């Protein structure tokens, strides 16, 4: 049971990275810390081409040449930008010190027409339409598309396929299609192709699957044998393979209610489907206007029948511990849980479960033979397993103080009467802030401030904390 728990624990930690986005990162070739060499190869070719593009762009449009190598570097190495959830291919707006005054990105005004208006899909579409209307010749469309890509998140349309298609539709059709073999051999209109790839890249990062219309547009704009089209085909291939790769799927939109979220988290940690979630306390607020002022935090717990039975068997002379808080990431949300656990029984005190002689009325449960399984038929691997003590229950609460957790233990006593006899020791970790900060001494120094995706080792780090840090054990 305990081992299962920890496995699941690990799994739960991993799943904060939504399957599709995770897959997407691999496809795009922005390697995570354990990128595959194959992916790297793709990446290399592409960044070479990007280098090409950069050079061409530099000569053609007169952008500062110095930008190119940095871009190659950025996509070759696992950079902070790669870890960002926003596209790595979208160039950042020029930094303020470069211009004498605060230079606006071109076309920025299109998105600032009605600052007081709500930022939603309609206004975003309006901006895109305005661009098309004002700019009959579509001058500067690449810049506009980059800008629009950056703005998508603000408008909450980063997961809308129709919007992406609309952005692609801005490109003039048939102009960038290579017409002869030489054009086909070299990257034709590299800046535009780059931009097309950037659109697809951002779709990828948000897990948006391109559709027929995207394909049609790309063919119309860049032709069938172009880099955006290659990207499209690869997305089509790998997205479908990776879409359901996560064995612990999460709903795309997490519930907003903390109680529902906690329930979801608990069910993700506990692999046993018979386990029951109990709400020990519903949240209530001191005064209705200020929601941050919690009078009673929510307390939810989960316990499976096996855990209940294990707790009933537990020797009351041995204390059990409430430990936590440990963090669990569900997509971009972090929640904290506590466990009720006991130490592993010393070897000499363990009882071997013996098969009672008079058990099965129908057939012998054991054969009375003195030879064992032959070595040739023993397929069990010789595994050194680190045994852990049993975990009896898990809880998620709105507050992590001892009073709240004591309420949980009280609630547990109703279904586990033996708990009343067992001393419970509260081993509280530090404040939540401490948990949030990446603890030093991890194998991999964080390259960027954690953005809600890459915190797998977090809880292990927490567990490894020194005992001295725990507050003094206290009996309930």
């Amino acid at each position, binding site marked *: 049971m305990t081992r299962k728990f920890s496995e699941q624990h690990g799994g739960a930690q991993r799943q904060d990275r939504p399957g599709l986005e995770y897959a997407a990162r691999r496809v795009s070739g922005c390697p995570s810390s354990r990128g595959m060499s194959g992916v790297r190869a793709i990446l290399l070719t592409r960044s070479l081409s990007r280098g090409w593009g950069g050079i061409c762009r530099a000569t053609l449009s007169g952008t500062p040449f110095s930008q190119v190598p940095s871009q190659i570097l950025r996509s070759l190495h696992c950079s902070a930008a790669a870890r960002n959830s926003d596209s790595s291919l979208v160039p950042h707006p020029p930094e303020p010190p470069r211009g004498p005054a605060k230079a606006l990105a071109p076309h920025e005004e299109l998105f600032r027409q009605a600052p007081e208006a709500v930022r939603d899909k309609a206004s975003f579409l309006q901006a895109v339409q305005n661009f098309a209307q004002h700019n009959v010749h579509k001058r500067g469309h690449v810049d506009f598309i980059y800008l629009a890509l950056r703005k998508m998140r603000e408008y909450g349309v980063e997961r809308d396929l129709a919007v992406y298609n609309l952005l692609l539709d801005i490109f003039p059709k048939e102009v960038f299609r290579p017409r002869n073999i030489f054009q086909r051999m070299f990257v034709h209109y590299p800046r535009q192709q780059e931009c097309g790839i950037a659109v697809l890249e951002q779709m990828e990062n948000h897990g948006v*699957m391109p*559709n027929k219309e995207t394909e049609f547009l790309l063919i119309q704009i860049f032709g069938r044998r172009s880099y955006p089209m290659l990207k499209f085909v690869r997305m*089509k291939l790998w*997205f*479908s393979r990776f*879409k*359901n790769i996560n064995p612990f799927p999460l709903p795309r939109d997490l519930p907003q209610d903390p109680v529902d979220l906690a329930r979801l988290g608990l069910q993700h940690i506990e692999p046993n*489907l018979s386990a029951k979630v109990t709400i020990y306390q519903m949240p209530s607020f001191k005064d209705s206007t200020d929601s941050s002022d919690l009078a009673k935090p929510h307390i939810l717990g989960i316990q499976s029948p096996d855990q209940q039975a294990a707790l009933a068997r537990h020797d009351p002379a041995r204390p059990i511990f409430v430990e936590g808080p440990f963090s669990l990431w569900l997509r971009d949300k972090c929640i904290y849980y506590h466990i009720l656990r006991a130490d592993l029984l010393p070897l000499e005190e363990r009882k071997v479960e013996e098969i*009672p002689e*008079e*058990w*099965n*009325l*129908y*057939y*012998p*449960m*054991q*054969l*009375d*033979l*003195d*030879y*064992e*399984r*032959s070595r*040739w*038929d023993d397929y069990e691997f010789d595994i050194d397993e680190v045994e852990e003590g049993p975990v009896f229950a898990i809880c998620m609460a709105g507050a992590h103080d001892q009073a709240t957790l004591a309420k949980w233990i009280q609630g547990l006593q109703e279904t586990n009467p033996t708990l009343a006899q067992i001393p419970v020791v509260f081993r509280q970790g530090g404040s939540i802030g401490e948990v949030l900060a990446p603890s030093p001494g991890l194998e991999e120094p964080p390259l960027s401030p954690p953005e809600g995706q890459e915190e797998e080792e977090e809880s292990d780090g927490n567990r490894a904390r020194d005992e001295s840090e725990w507050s003094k054990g206290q009996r309930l």
Partner: protein
Amino acid sequence: RSGGEGGWVLRKRNAASGVGTGEWRHRAARAKLARPRAEPGGGACGLRRLRMSGGGLFLRAAAVARSWRALVAFTASRRPLRTSPRGRAFAKELFLGKIEKKEVFPFPEVSQDELNEINQFVGPVEKFFTEEVDSRKIDRDGKIPNETLEGLKSLGLFGMQVPEEYGGLGLSNTMYARLGEIISLDGSITVMLAAHQAIGLKGIILAGNEKQKAKYLPRLASGEHIAAFCLTEPARSARARPSPPIPTILSSAHICLGSGSDAASISTRATLSEDKQHYILNGSKVWITNGGLANIFTVFAKTKIEDSDGSVKDKITAFIVERDFGGVTNGKPEDKLGIRGSNTCEVHFENTRVPVENVLGEVGGGFKVAMNILNSGRFSMGTAVAGMLKKLIGMTAEHACTRKQFSKKLSEFGLIQEKFALMAQKTYVMESMAYLTAGMLDQPGFPDCSIEAAMVKVFSSEAAWQCVSEALQILGGSGYVKDYPYERMLRDARILLIFEGTNEILRMYIALTGLQHAGRILTARVNELKRGNVTTVMETVGQRLRDTLGRRVDMGLTGTLGAVHPSVGDSANKLEENVYYFGRTVETLLLRFGKTIAEEQMVLKRVANTLINLYGMTAVLSRASRSIRIGLRNHDHEVLLANTFCTEAYYQNLFTLSQLDKYAPENLDEQVKKVSQQVLEKRAYICAHPLDRTS
């Protein structure tokens, strides 16, 4: 068995008449005493009842004639419970690759006198069942009407195997099996009677002392009291709320005859009262057939037993509990799929005071009692099913030969003919197996035939389900409607696979009991092999080499002085070959798995299946040989059936045995386990819908 050359004279019957007349008078007196009790049924059916009770008296008179044998049986039954095998049992020897010919050849016979006697029994019972029993009404009302019950009582069918001095018919196993063929015409009555005497009162016959027998058996045999067997308990989680019991228990327990297989889960408790005169019984039992009708219960409960070393342990003890002891209540009858006329319900005991003299067997010896009861009664299912199938074949053949389709009779279509061949073959095999087993059981000395009986049960229940299903296929729509009896037969047949130990559990029993036997004998050899004794290793290697080169196995079944007739000689050779390689396979399996084979259920299932086939082959060969030699009617048909079955079974066995080889490509166990593991992990069918898309 009397000597060598005589073969199968089941029992000597000499000078029975003198004792018989005395018995007769005694019986008549008892019958007279019993008469007034039967009266309050009403005047209208008085005549019929008189006639029937006449028939019953006649039956009893015939039964009395065998009192000498009964006396023998009686003295023998006082022996302690039979636990140790008497001689070398046939099925166990098969595990060593040997055919114990003496046990199965020639086919058991009954003497002419006995045959006449059986036929005298059969006539009135058959008449009663065809004329008086309305199965459809029983099924619809969910109840056996009182007059039917009275009829059964007056025919003496409530005490078929109760010894005669206790007022039963004292039938031998063979005769009991023969009557079972007729009784099975109604499923509910069969189950009700089986619960009464095959398990309900069997405990008293097997383990009861003289006083208990004298006190309870006469009234049970006459049907004045009905017995029930209370073993199964509700699952632990359901115990907090007594009803309804959760249906998961169905999978592992056997419902209708009322027993679960997990003895450790029994929580009904009997505590000794302060004056040490009574046990106070508390607890509930579920799935008790006859629970609502019974007056006498065989109840299994936990008692505290002090061990020899002074430690106190909970052990199971069997009790005879009368309803009159007080505190016995029962729930409402369960609404069942089939055998709807039988009464199945929960029984609760609340502070029931059971006198200490009502302990059945020893205190703390309940487990053995239960095991013996359960093991003793299984063989009779073979003949019961055969009786039902024979009738079914008649009815469907009538349909197939009259109904026309595409201006052809149904019987002319190959696919229909196939089904009749299947039904005939299965019936023939199960009949042969059942009567062979009954004959073995009737030999003096209480042979241990529990494996054989279990094989009969497994084969016949599965054949019943298959055949009834095929019959429904022949009948088409009319098989599916309630106007005809076929759908009822289908529903009734389904329980056969479940009760008296589910077939899965019995397969484990068959395989493990045999492997235990073989394992003990092979211990020395296996140890030498493991130690690497050169001679043994060389011997084994040489044997394997000869096996692979193709050896001709001869166990002496065929040939000039062979046990089987030459017309089934080929089949006998097939049997010999199968048995030889089965023995080899068992040895290999034991070498490979050792005692951990108890966990390899899929391997055990194959072992059991092969053994059932081998036993079936032996039974039909033995029976067909006898039929030819004594020139029974249509023996050529029997030869045909025997040969087809043996060939089919031979190839099945070859396939199964090859699956048991290591790394056999036919063996998909690992995959099967993986599939089920993945399904069970999610507790759902996990494939995506075929119409789903990823984009």
